[in-house]
């Protein structure tokens, strides 16, 4: 039976009709999805088990061998976990995924976050059973290939940065910062200079820098920025003294500028017996063109999820290896891999640390770090090679400067006169109409189909808009974004009130964050039970 046989004939579509609200709340492909607690139940499961694992069912429920038992510890109360069948599960998470923006979908210029393309070869390699299905405590002779990955990546990272050694175990950037700061603290204590208590941090730093230093027991002091957006070298040098333990500097900095005086700063810091920590979040701007080791850096974490393309995954897992200078390397954490002349790889842990690594500050995490990210990062690095990585930073910087110069007449660019930017372009909300701010521009960009830039960071610029395009965007993608941001910015300058209620075309309109914080609802509660309890 064809549809035509039942009487329907193709006709010209009618334009301009107004939609009525839908029963479901869905809007075509924009689909609402309930919580698993509202659609699942305790009897449904999407997993089948072998029906009769008879050889393993030697004892009755809860009973162990020769009269042992889980006894009074056996669970009696229900847990309250809803289950879904496999098709329902696939649909639930597929629907949820469609309420997310990702790099795969479009331009994601989140400054300081390096949202570059995540190559799928990385994913495929990380899933090789030889990497994905090995246990961290297997005898080392059975994991030589895994130690080989760690070792090979470590060699790349030290050569790309011109540093002496690398600690691979930190789980993320902030964990890497902690690693670097603990190395510095251990080094000072080994010198009998544990009294140095001050860590200097520029105002433009990531929030993790002062949080890390404070966690390690240091007092944090701000260093001001100059009008051109760089560290005030004179003020920094004036503050250096015998109480200073370290300086934490982000280079390229969060204003998107290279710290020209970095080497001079490092020399001055070293001259007073302190160390230089570099926040390596922005390494993507200089990989293959500048080696931080040549600038006198003592420690720098590398976010593998930024520069080396491991996926951000909606907020982790990250991975934050820390490259170390010769002065700090002896204090780095356990465990680490060592390669012997015969090619055999060893894992240096507490047992052998006494001989191999006596000054280590200790262990930071249970096992060896983010192996799954190491395989991805190494795959990425091998794909690019030394030449490709250099092209990465060149294209990343070219794309950012193209955005800066294409938009500086539309938006206020406070440091546009400070020379070329590096991998990100910084604008402020100066010049927008009264009552309009960066957030309105950002939400307007959502309606245009883009992920917004980083908002209100760094703190040194009013209403900061930090745009990092990365090297994996085409010129056409940049041109489309530039046109969209120009249009949104002009609307914000003209006081277009519709921007204040943007986004209009997202799965949700602006969300009430104040309400969420005032009366936190952090877990789902059955409304029927909750009402009965009141």
């Amino acid at each position, binding site marked *: 039976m064809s549809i035509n046989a039942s009487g329907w004939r193709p006709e010209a579509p009618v334009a301009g009709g107004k939609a009525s609200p839908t029963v479901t709340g869905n809007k075509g492909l924009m689909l609402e999805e309930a919580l698993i607690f509202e659609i699942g139940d305790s009897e449904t499961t999407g997993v089948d088990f072998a029906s009769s694992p008879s050889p393993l069912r030697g004892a009755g429920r809860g009973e162990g061998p020769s009269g042992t038992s889980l006894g009074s510890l056996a669970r009696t109360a229900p847990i309250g976990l809803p*289950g879904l069948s496999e098709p329902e599960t696939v649909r639930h998470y597929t629907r949820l995924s469609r309420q997310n923006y990702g790099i795969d979908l479009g331009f994601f210029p989140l400054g300081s976050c390096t949202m570059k393309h995540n190559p799928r070869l990385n994913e495929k390699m990380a899933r090789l059973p030889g990497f994905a299905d090995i246990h961290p405590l297997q005898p080392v002779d059975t994991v030589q290939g895994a130690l080989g990955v760690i070792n090979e990546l470590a060699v790349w990272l030290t050569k790309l940065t011109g540093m002496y050694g690398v600690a691979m175990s930190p789980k993320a950037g902030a964990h890497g910062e902690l690693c670097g700061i603990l190395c510095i603290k251990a080094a000072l204590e080994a010198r009998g200079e544990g009294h140095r208590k001050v860590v200097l941090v520029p105002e433009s730093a990531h929030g993790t820098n002062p949080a890390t230093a404070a966690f390690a027991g240091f007092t944090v002091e701000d260093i001001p920025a100059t009008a051109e957006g760089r560290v005030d070298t004179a003020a920094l040098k004036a503050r250096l003294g015998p109480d200073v333990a370290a300086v934490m500097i982000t280079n390229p900095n969060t204003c998107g500028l290279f710290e*020209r005086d970095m080497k001079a700063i490092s020399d001055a810091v070293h001259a007073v017996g302190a160390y230089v920590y570099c926040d390596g979040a922005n390494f993507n701007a200089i990989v293959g063109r500048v080696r931080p080791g040549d600038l006198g850096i003592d420690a720098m974490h590398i976010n593998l999820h930024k520069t080396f393309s491991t996926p951000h995954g909606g907020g982790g897992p990250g991975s934050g290896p820390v490259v170390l200078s010769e002065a700090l390397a002896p204090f780095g954490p356990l465990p680490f891999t060592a390669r012997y002349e015969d090619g055999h790889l060893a894992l240096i842990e507490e047992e052998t640390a006494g001989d191999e690594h006596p000054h280590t500050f200790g262990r930071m995490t249970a096992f060896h770090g983010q192996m799954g990210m190491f395989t991805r990062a190494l795959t990425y690095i091998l794909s690019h090679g030394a030449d490709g990585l250099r092209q990465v930073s060149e294209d990343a910087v*070219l794309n950012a400067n193209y955005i800066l110069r294409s938009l500086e007449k539309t938006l206020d660019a406070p440091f546009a006169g400070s020379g070329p930017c590096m991998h990100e372009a910084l604008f402020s909300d100066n010049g927008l109409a009264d009552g309009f701010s960066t957030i309105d521009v950002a939400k307007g960009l959502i309606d245009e189909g883009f992920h917004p830039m980083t908002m209100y960071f760094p703190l040194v610029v009013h209403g900061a808009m930090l745009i990092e395009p990365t090297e994996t965007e085409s010129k056409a993608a940049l041109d489309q974004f530039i046109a969209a941001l120009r249009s949104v910015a002009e609307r914000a300058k003209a006081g277009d009130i519709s921007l204040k209620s943007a986004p209009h075309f997202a799965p949700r309109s602006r969300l009430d964050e104040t309400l969420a914080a005032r009366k936190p609802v952090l877990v789902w509660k059955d409304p029927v039970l909750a009402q009965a309890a009141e």
Partner: protein
Amino acid sequence: MRYLPLTQSDREAMLGVIGAASIDDLFVDVPEAARLDGPIHDLPMHASEMAVERHMSALARKNLTAGEAPFFLGCGAYRHHVPASVDHLIQRGEFLTAYTPYQPEIAQGTLQMLFEFQTQVARLLGTDVANASMYDGSTACWEAIGMARRITKRGKAILSSGLHPHYVSVAKTMAKFTGDVLETATPSLSADTDLATLIAAIDKDTSCVVVQYPDILGRIADLTPLADACHANKALLIAVVTEPVALGAIKAPGEMDADIVVGEGQSLGVGLQFGGPYVGLFGCKEKYVRQMPGRLCGETLDADGRRGFVLTLSTREQHIRREKATSNICTNSGLCALAFSIHMTLLGEKGLRTLAEINHHGAVAAAARLSQVPGVELVTPTFFNEFTLKLPQEARPVVRSLAERGILAGVSLGRLYPGEASLANGLVVAVTETTSAEDVETLAAALEEILA
């Protein structure tokens, strides 16, 4: 280069717009002495997808994969079957390539998932609330100790001898720098946990007691008396769960009045991966929520009155509080939390309980068989899916010889506690639904041969 879209003519056109003569002009702020004039020497150049795949596969083949051997390792990382749909779903680009949900209107997928994850974790651990995850169990454990210090304003933590020695190491490392005092001890190769010793050690300076459940040797004990003793001294009880599947069969620590419950969530959805990335679980009583580390997702409404989710209580966090933050943590373990949550949704209450039952029964049968090996003794009569055997000789060389025969026999206590003679004969054996009866028989037969 296949990942770089700009063509040479694009580059030239863009330099023209910028007003720069060459790419070098964009790097003028780099001091000349630090500029590299070409690709770094003695590193390979770019490679095709096929060439990279060949290289990585060769490295992967050098490892003895758990799936290819009778496999019995646990001690903080467990091999469970992960349904195929889990890995398919976490590879959807909208999850895989999203950032932290700072723009909630276009991140409801991640946010709703985190809200569901928090609820699942809180229910599993028996706590009122849970956060959006930590790096792993060991770092979550340390963060809990720090949180107890902030709440009680006391600086002494008592760590059970049954706590994973690597978790103890992490805590010791951090305590060196924060000034916390940690009381630690080495476990004894016996059936009894150290609960009585812990209770006796609590005093008015104690911020918390940290106890693992089931513990490093696989033992389980009722935490209620310990919780009571802690609370009588205004100290907190922190329970650490490294095998969340156990909570399908035994009471949750929260049910026994633990104040903070942390865990390693790797068992569900994540896979072994040589130790990471994993996913730290973190739950606590509601009254302590503002002292919690890490991200929290909360429910709210949008401008049109529809339910939605946002990151909340961020005034605890480093990007707002800077040096006064509860932790320096910036990421969570989002994609691993997603994998955990999907696996848990597929299991549901019924599936998790069945899974736990299969694990327990398998372990009971394996313990019975292995303790029949002449000279081998079962140390831990009460356990979930992991138990400790005492061999008639040092376990570490035995594990190595078994590995040479292609059997991954378990974790020797000599590996975890090098130099502790009293533990050297201990072997911790884990059994999950992936362990077959044939695997157990293979291990038993090989042990009989080696120990004969």
